[in-house]
């Protein structure tokens, strides 16, 4: 087995793959120190992200901000107290890491949902060389697949 992709390692950590795939990745990891390192880095990143707390602002935070607003002399970010900057940086890091993970997860779910329709449509079109396969049947299957691929129920109603 070649080295697994990042998304496969991510799916492996989240137990979002089949047992057979998990076994194969596990076997690969047993003999691949570099992938073990990648996996550990991934695991640590996810652990750190999960452990992040939203720190409470200091008691005088609001009054301080209002006072600073009344003194428009320096760029706003130079006047921020360090905990606020740290909080913003942490939030940005969460967004930068979490968005691709969530998007990847959604992409996999979407692919699983539309895959059978896409494949059925392609197969029916290939089968059209059968001169006795009913044309209306081909048309019905293909147009239904078009709608499912567009996220719509072929018989009405939003999916």
């Amino acid at each position, binding site marked *: *087995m070649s080295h*697994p*992709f990042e*998304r*496969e390692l991510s*799916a492996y950590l989240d137990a*979002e*793959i*089949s*047992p*057979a*795939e998990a076994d*194969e990745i596990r076997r690969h990891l047993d003999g691949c120190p570099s992938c073990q390192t990648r996996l550990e880095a991934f695991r640590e990143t996810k652990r750190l992200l999960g452990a992040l707390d939203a720190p409470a602002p200091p008691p005088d935070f609001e009054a301080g901000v209002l006072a600073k607003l009344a003194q428009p002399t320096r760029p706003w970010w130079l006047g921020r107290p360090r905990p606020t900057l740290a909080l913003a940086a942490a939030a940005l890091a969460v967004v930068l890491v979490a968005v691709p993970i969530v998007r990847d*997860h959604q*992409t*996999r*779910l*979407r*692919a*699983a*949902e*539309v*895959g*059978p329709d*896409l*494949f*059925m449509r*392609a*197969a*029916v*079109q*290939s*089968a*059209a*060389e*059968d*001169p*006795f*396969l*009913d*044309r*209306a*049947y*081909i*048309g*019905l*299957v*293909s*147009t239904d697949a*078009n*709608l499912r*691929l*567009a996220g*719509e*129920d*072929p*018989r*009405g109603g939003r999916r």
Partner: protein
Amino acid sequence: MSWLALLALAAVLTTAAPVASQTGPRQPTPDGVTIEQVVRHAALAPQIVDYEGTKILSVLRGAEMETVTLNEAHKRPARTRLDFLSPEGVAGRILIDDGLQAWHYEPRLHMVFVGPSLGPMTDAPLSFPIERYGARWLGTEEVIGRPTAVISLWPRAGGRERRLWIDRTTGVALRVEERDPADGLVLTAYFTRISFGLNLPPALFQPRPPAGARIVTQAEVTGPVLPLAVLERGVGFPVRVPQTLPGGFALLGGVPVRDGPVLAAHVQYSDGARVISLFVAPAGRFGPSGRGDAVAALGPGARTAVVGSMRLVLWDGPRTRLTLVGPLPLAELIALASAVGKAAP
């Protein structure tokens, strides 16, 4: 055009096809022609006649039959227009196929889907391998007042029986039934009225997107059917295929399939008339599928689905999501799925 003239034309075209002139059911019918001649006449009919009629289509979906009514117009050689009438969920749907491109208008969404032709004209009718089919003459019957020859065809290797009520004048199948050994009747299509020889106007087959309709262009199949090695390089992942195939089937090759998040290798097998499709995609691109029915024989997550003539089996192999689609009985598709990745005996 008369029945005899059409037969003569079919005979000329049949002689031009090397496969067609080999073996086949030579059983004479009471009409004085053989079953093979009647079947070839029917296969060629869409290239010879125009027609327009109302059709009732009943298709097995899962455990239930769904019935759809539509108007079907055909202009030789390869143009088709379907206007769906009922049930309500499909009423107003239009499909126009000019042999190059298919155009689907969905009124409920005010959307137009444009994609590759659903039935491009090929030489398949000429090379229809009737020698691989059992055939039986079932007699003559009237369908909507027109005399028809009733023929039963079934693959010699086993599989679904197809009955055709073939119009004796034009060769058009006025009624079709498909029976699966396991599921019984899976598809029925018949005309309730039909008109022939109209020389239908080309404008009927000219797509005209309604004002303001959103047009969605579908991903096209990227080029001709490729050898497997070329296909693997094109999609960028290994394509595992079955080492043993059902009787009469041979590998045609494959094409990449792309649509949104999905990239798969589409490998095709054919016995000359029926096509089996195997789709191979990296498992990392797919989540678990909840569609269809579970099938334990192919492991956790494996599913099956039935849509009329077609059966679908999807399952997970090592790092791979595989999907088989074809007009074979489900048990045969599952057996074929089990052969993927195994060495030939």
